[in-house]
């Protein structure tokens, strides 16, 4: 039971809102020690795992390009473009991105999307601008809500698209694991059975995105009423 201490440290640390980096590192070291390994070995395997997983950080390489373009007005341009497309609402725009993200991921093109290279410079500003066009100025709260949804669409499109591609990590892992248990399965059969869930994901999240439009409209009207009431109180 002692090695489970790491799980408790993580849960307690996140609940107490301590710095996650500190919480996770502490949990890792504590787990290794609780399992009876020497401190030097624990620090070594910790270091090795950190180095071995450097590839997750490669997306940050896009930041010089994104920053350079932001400096030249990329976000502002994205807003102008979306303002000209009158049918584009926040929900419809995100729905279109969900479809593109699912389809490209299903073809194995997972790095075409992503938060640094697509969501921050393009999708989020466009989703905000679409809301501004239809429902006027946005409160900080509403703006943040739209941004969170833009990030969420990228995740959901990726997760429920990539498993349709036969050479993705998760399919290779399933195959490797079952091979070790003496069961041979075809990657194409695994990929095929990812399709029903992918369709459900598009229907469920797509519906939520279309409902988001209605909810954003109401939120904007409420914010404006509140703003107008505050102005009136100021005049009196």
């Amino acid at each position, binding site marked *: 039971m002692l090695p489970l201490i*790491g799980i408790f440290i993580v849960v307690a640390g996140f609940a107490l809102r301590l710095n996650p980096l500190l919480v996770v590192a502490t949990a890792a070291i504590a787990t290794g020690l609780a399992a009876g390994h020497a401190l030097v070995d624990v620090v070594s395997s*910790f*270091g090795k795992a950190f180095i071995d*997983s450097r590839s997750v950080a490669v997306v940050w390489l896009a930041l010089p390009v994104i920053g350079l373009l932001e400096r030249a007005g990329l976000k502002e*341009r994205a807003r102008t473009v979306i303002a000209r497309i009158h049918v584009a609402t926040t929900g419809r725009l995100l729905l279109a991105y969900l479809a593109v993200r699912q389809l490209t991921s299903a073809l194995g093109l997972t790095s075409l999307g992503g938060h640094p290279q697509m969501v921050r410079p393009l999708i989020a500003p466009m989703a905000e601008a679409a809301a501004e066009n239809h429902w006027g100025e946005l409160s900080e709260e509403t703006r943040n809500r739209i941004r*969170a949804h833009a990030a969420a669409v990228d995740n959901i499109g990726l997760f429920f698209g990539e498993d349709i591609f036969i050479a993705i990590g998760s399919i290779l892992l399933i195959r490797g694991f079952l091979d070790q248990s003496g069961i041979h399965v075809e990657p194409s059969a695994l990929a095929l059975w990812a399709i029903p869930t992918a369709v459900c994901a598009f229907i469920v999240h797509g519906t939520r995105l279309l409902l988001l439009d209605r909810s954003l409209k109401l939120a904007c009207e409420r914010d404006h009423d509140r703003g107008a009431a505050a102005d009136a109180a100021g005049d009196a």
Partner: protein
Amino acid sequence: MITLDFVFILMGLMMAGIAIVNLRDRTSAKRYNNAAFWGIYATTFLVGSHLPNFVNGTLVIAMVLIVAVGKLRGAPAEGTTRVDREASAARWGNKLFIPALTIPAVTLLGTLTLKRIHLGGVALIDAKQVTLISLGFGIAVALIVGLVMLRPPVTAPIVEARRLMDAVSWAAVLPQMLAALGAMFTLAGVGPLVAGIIQRWIPLDTALIVVVAYTVGMALFTSIMGNALAAFPVMTAGIGLPLIVHRFGGDVVIMAAVGMLSGYSGTLITPMAANFNIVPAALLELPDSNAVIKAQIPTAILLLVANTAIMYFFVYRK
């Protein structure tokens, strides 16, 4: 042969540049902390593959201590005003999208072609890493296109990268830290312990309960581990194979494929999946670090229900 190390060198150089920009910023009260943090991170990319594991572990602990004890400063103010940027946007028009779209275009092209290129009988690139290497190329080409087109001051890319990187701050390192935690869990045998607890405490005696225990177990254990790939072997060895497949005669392909997808619901609801949930909240400068998770919870729950239904209705049909 070009391997992932080529991309890591680029990462290391960028992080080193960010450390230097921080160090030279006299307006920042925490400039030494930020510089040390990104400087150590740069070291792990530049020479990490050649250092002993223990030294790497110590470097990582040093980064954690800088954040926990010394604290980092967040993003500096933007160097340009909104008026400047709107004027620039009006001037460049849709051409501004060219460098941004160069990244996916070159990545796509590289993914499709680089594997096939051989020079003197040796593959040009490491085929296993073709996507990430292509992404590295795509970004490099996009940067050159951007520099040629916009002709900004030479330091602009790294100064802007620093602005964005300091906005993300320590959250940028969290995904790797969580991967290290996962490795420690494996080392300590946490997975079999959890599977043992589930088997001991839940009455797994009907075909439906076994499916529910497996799909919900995948989602919950994924939310603890932060990664469905880490939860899959544990839950499948504990419940999927012995109970769904062997005892109740379920189909192994449907069990495995839908089981993995059930885990993704767990990924959508946990701060432990930092690169999907916490990092974008930082990148989009959201005050609530759980805002992305909150947007995803309803979808995650509905899809877990859908996956459980899909598995129950199809896994036992032969």
